[in-house]
């Protein structure tokens, strides 16, 4: 078993290769990228990063994305909490069907909804606003959030709820003071998944915005098409796009395993 480290190492190398290449490219000039193969930058430059962080067209793309992603995460979790509680604690007519139907919303490709959303939001004056994208992403994220949270909530014994009521807690007070701390990890995992899905979703975000709320994904494609192929710049933008997700995943990495154990992630 002297070589047991070999397979995992190879696996990780191949896994990291595209990311390394992206980082590698981001520190090269476009000319060097086009010139040929080089495993590390010959002429190291941070010009691309400087361009992105100083040019409002670029950094507003990030800010816009962050705004609607955070909005979406907050809305999704806030709406899903009471819904998941109802699914977890009460039996009502058609509850199981409704729960499954919620999930089927995730099965449809976003493209199906792009046109109706565009028409609807244009007619009510929501087009090119952050809230428009945040609301559109709720279509996918709320069902997911309900699904994940329901699993965590069902792991909390119902007797805790009842004990709290017997002790005199009103429902809102019980929910915030007793119940939410119990499912804090579930809320963290849910927020992470909402964040990730909203962050990487491109089609709806691009369709529903033009200038004021333009997401980073749209900025990247447009810049590429106007100023030729600014490959170094694109690579740097790509690196910066990975960073928020990496930061968030660092905070919830321990809870995600718990979510997997519950079969809900």
């Amino acid at each position, binding site marked *: 078993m002297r070589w047991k480290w070999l397979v995992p190492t190879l696996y990780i190398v191949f896994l990291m290769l595209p990311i390394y290449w992206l980082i590698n490219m981001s520190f090269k000039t476009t000319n060097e990228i086009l010139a040929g193969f080089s495993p590390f930058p010959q002429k190291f430059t941070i010009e691309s990063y400087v361009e992105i962080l100083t040019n409002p067209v670029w950094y507003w793309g990030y800010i816009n994305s962050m705004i609607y992603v955070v909005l979406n995460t907050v809305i999704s979790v806030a709406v899903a909490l009471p819904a998941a509680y109802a699914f977890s604690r009460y039996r009502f007519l058609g509850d199981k069907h409704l729960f499954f139907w919620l999930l089927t919303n995730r099965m449809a490709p976003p493209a199906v909804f792009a046109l109706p959303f565009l028409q609807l939001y244009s007619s009510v004056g929501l087009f090119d606003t952050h809230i428009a994208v945040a609301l559109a992403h709720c279509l996918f994220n709320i069902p997911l959030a309900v699904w994940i949270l329901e699993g965590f909530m069902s792991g909390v014994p119902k007797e805790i709820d*009842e*004990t709290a009521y017997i002790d005199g807690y009103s429902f809102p007070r019980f929910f915030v003071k*007793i119940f939410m701390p*119990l499912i804090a990890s579930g809320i963290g995992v849910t927020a992470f998944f909402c964040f990730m899905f909203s962050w990487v979703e491109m089609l709806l975000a691009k369709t529903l915005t033009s200038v004021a709320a333009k997401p980073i994904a749209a900025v990247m494609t447009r810049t590429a098409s106007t100023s030729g192929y600014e490959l170094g710049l694109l690579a740097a933008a790509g690196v910066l796009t990975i960073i928020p997700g990496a930061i968030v995943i660092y905070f919830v990495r321990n809870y995600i395993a718990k979510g997997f154990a519950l079969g809900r992630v």
Partner: protein
Amino acid sequence: MLELREVSKRVGDAVHIRDVSIRLEPGTLNVLLGPTLAGKTTLMRLMAGLDRPTSGTVWADGVDVTGLAVQKRDVAMVYQQFINYPALTVYENIASPMRIARRPKAEIDETVARVAALLKLEPFLDRLPLQLSGGQQQRTALARALAKNARLVLLDEPLANLDYKLREELRAELPKIFSQSGAIFVYATAEPEEALLLGGHTATLHEGSLTQFGPTVDVYRRPNTLLTARTFSDPPLNWARVRKVGGVFHTHLPDEPPEGEADVPVPPAYAGLADGAYVIGLRPHHLALSPTGADDVAVDGYVQAIEITGSETYVHLDCLNTDCIMLTHGVHELPLGSTVTVHFSLSRLMVFDAEDVAVAPQAEDVAVAPDAGKGAD
């Protein structure tokens, strides 16, 4: 005072509680005794106000509280599972009902200290419940119920999930702890022994019906029906359907050849009964391998199985034309399939009529012999 008037609870077609009427006085300990699924927990939930009865009313101190939200009732409850607020410290757990009631801080401190001392929780007040052992967690739950100082305290098999030693210890303490408060205590248990140890009053439940309610010892000694006697017996009550012909209870069916040795003489107190169908019952610890006294009866028994627990031996017998259990002290190694002579005192015999209702002995002093059915052994 808590009173249930003809309370029923149905879920779909299933009847969980059937026409239960009961009146519990302040300062009493009331045991709900019944096997699993008898409706103990359902009845407690109705008393607490967690569930609403399908029909009937619940009265607290003369006020109809049937539809009243559980928050507005003066109730505390402890579950079989160790239910605490995991995110709060033991101190905050105990203090929580008083915090909700907006009691002054000094009073909260004082009460928590007193209750924690009573339940030996003082060293753990700063810990979280999940850092404690099962016994300590349940003590925390009990402390919270105690600290609330409610007029109705419901304990739903609070000791069932604890190990033997802790259970004994807490069970001995519980009546003492709660006796001073003047509240109504309701204690659900599936163990007849526990009911006898706790004393107070006992209500026996069977499939959602209240079969008898009265002082625990009375219910144990004088069950109204065969059902109550069976509920309140562990190991299971020995009972047989018999025919009374003259001075003898025949244990065999009419079309079977008579087997004289399995017949039981009718006790003198029941001599005046009309001939016909009856049920006789005998508690397992009233059967013995040696003669029991002046009114001793001996019957043959065939040994089917033996369980030795150490200080006691459970002998499963084919006796009186039915399956019987004999509980004897000491270790007895009887060969399986062998015939033994089983002795019992005739005054221990319980007699029920064909409808399973207890038949009162005509001479009261005979049936209520001073040591009849002594204790839970």
